[in-house]
């Protein structure tokens, strides 16, 4: 008698089960990361404690977590839109950068010449457009030329990063920055106010929360959201139904890219106040955003919670870098492991393990 195991599709999935699987996946992910730490010679529980303490254990920690959650909410919710349509937008990093670049241009050139109240809104608008255009490019490439969006968005990531590098050591190099690769600082009118005692640029935070809500409504209650979901779930039925694939894809990338661009504006005007190396400005938010969206099960509202969670990991990761001397790459390990366990968990939501006893007939 032989025993084999098979994955058998489930009929019903309840939200309760989904949530349970999610939590279990995260737990398993943490355990796995703990193992990695242990191999590296670090006490996993100690590391975990340090991470939690770093991100949620103090006023500073919590404020930092919220600060880092702002771009993640924006990018995460934008990506839920793209992923729902099965458009794999890996380019949020560069969409963010383009938003930052465009906003900086406004800030540096018009920041002192326009009435104060106009500058910030204009920066956000232009930042949105910058990210939107950069996001629309891969959409165009896919629809008109059949180019795989994973590769085109990635390539554009590198192109945008090098473009920024070019700007900060070349034409935009700050005269006041003593040779550092920065642009000039943004004038006061072009910077965002923060909550005193923190780095939380609250205007962007409000915009982020608003975007999450708007995108949620968009996905579930509008015609566009419906068409987007049909395109993602069954593109051939979408064609049959007369849904314009081209229009849908471009619009969704305009939104997804634009929202990432808003994140770029926030980072530049609220945190750094000038442009510098791409790695500093976008800080891997584009990639972390992918996991944020996935953890949120592609629900824009849930991405708020998911963003806070991953922001916590980022902040905690910074903390253990300092205290335990671990490299920045540690965060990548976290992200990769957690994402793996999340998708493994996905499998068990829709299927269950069945033990089949083989028989000889």
């Amino acid at each position, binding site marked *: 008698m032989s025993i084999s195991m098979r*994955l058998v599709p489930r009929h019903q999935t309840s939200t309760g089960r989904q949530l349970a699987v999610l939590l279990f996946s995260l737990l398993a992910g943490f355990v796995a990361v703990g193992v*990695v730490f242990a191999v*590296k010679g670090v006490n996993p529980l100690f590391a975990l404690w340090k991470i939690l303490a770093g991100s949620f254990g103090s006023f500073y920690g919590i404020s930092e977590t919220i600060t880092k959650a702002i771009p993640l909410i924006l990018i995460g919710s934008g990506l839920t839109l793209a992923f729902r349509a099965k458009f*794999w937008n*890996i380019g949020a990093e560069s969409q963010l950068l383009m938003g930052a670049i465009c906003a900086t241009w406004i800030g540096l050139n018009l920041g002192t010449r326009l009435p104060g109240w106009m500058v910030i809104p204009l920066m956000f608008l232009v930042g949105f457009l910058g990210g939107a255009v950069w996001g629309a490019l891969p959409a165009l*490439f896919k629809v*008109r*030329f*059949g*180019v*795989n969006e*994973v*590769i*085109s968005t*990635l*390539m*554009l990531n*590198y*192109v945008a990063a*090098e*473009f920024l*590098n*070019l700007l900060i*050591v*070349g034409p935009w190099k700050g005269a006041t920055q003593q040779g550092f690769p920065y642009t000039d600082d943004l004038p006061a009118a072009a910077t965002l106010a923060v909550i005193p005692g923190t780095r939380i640029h609250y205007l962007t935070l409000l915009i982020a929360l608003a975007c999450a809500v708007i995108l949620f409504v968009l996905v579930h209650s509008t015609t566009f959201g419906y068409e987007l979901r049909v395109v993602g779930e069954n593109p051939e039925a979408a064609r049959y139904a007369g849904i314009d694939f081209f229009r849908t894809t471009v619009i969704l990338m305009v939104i997804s890219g634009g929202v990432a661009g808003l994140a770029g504006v926030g980072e530049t005007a609220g945190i750094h106040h000038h442009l510098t190396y791409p790695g500093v400005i976008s800080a891997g938010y584009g*990639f972390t955003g*992918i996991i944020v969206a*996935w953890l949120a099960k592609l629900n824009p509202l849930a991405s708020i919670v998911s963003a806070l969670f991953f922001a916590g990991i980022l902040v905690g990761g910074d903390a253990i870098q300092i205290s335990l001397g*671990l*490299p*920045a*790459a*540690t*965060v*990548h*390990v*976290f*992200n*990769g*492991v957690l*994402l*793996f366990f999340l*998708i*493994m968990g*996905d*499998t068990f939501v829709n299927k269950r393990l069945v033990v089949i006893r083989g028989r000889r007939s």
Partner: protein
Amino acid sequence: MGSIIVSTLIRTLIAGTPLLLGTLGEIVTERSGVLNLGVEGMMAIGAMTAFTVTLTTGSPWFGLLAAFLAGALAGGIHAFVSITLKANQVVSGLALTMLGLGVSGLFGRPFIGRPLPSKLSTLPIPGLADIPVLGRILFSQDPLFYLAVILGILLWILLARTRWGIEIRSVGENPAAAEVQGVNVARIRYLCVLLGGALAGMAGAHLSLVYSKSWTEGLTGGRGWIVIALTIFALWNPLRAFLGAFLFGCIFVLQYLLQPIGVPPNFLAMMPYLATLAVLLAGGLRKDHRRLLAPAKLGEAYTKGER
């Protein structure tokens, strides 16, 4: 002038070798129907493993072997998640990339910047290496180059002219039909993904042992993604992979050539990525023809008994 051309060609072949190895691996993987976007991560793991093992054991050959195995292991994770668990292959590949970059950065930290004492020296082929010009370019290269070339030819023969090749390609085109003929779809896919991972690992090893003879974070520099694009450019044919890999190797080398004459370095750094885009866009112009050549069921999970 002539010597510049010769040295350029030599360096083109060196630069193209990791791209060729990676592309060959990804071609085999994708032909069996599995999309593995984790090449960047697998390459990073291979690079770091090769470097650290070579440093600690003193033998680059151990380093190569370790990279081969490490790459296969990394590929194995993706194989398990994609084939057995039938999860979303795109996201799994991305997760593998993150994990690979993270793990290699984490464990490679102590080795950053250390010099490589025992190198993988070039292996001139006796007799052929003496041919003027060509001998220096083609026949005085490192062992991995020869391996890549031989592997490319072998893989072409395997895919096009052997029974195993028919099985692999059938599994990628129509796994249900293959299964009905008694072919074990999952096993073939596993083997192909593992091989793809092993080759990506070796590509990474080349980067750290031959190309740059050092290890830093970010050594792979997006080459894994270029490999994925090259797979499409090669139309999933190992022989065409030669063309793509060395073409892009050339572009990497040109960066250094054009710098002295005043072309801004950042623009040059963009070149490989812009070139990838351009190549894919051009390929898209003859859309129908290209689509017919991708394995029909690429990226789709197969459930046994599903028809």
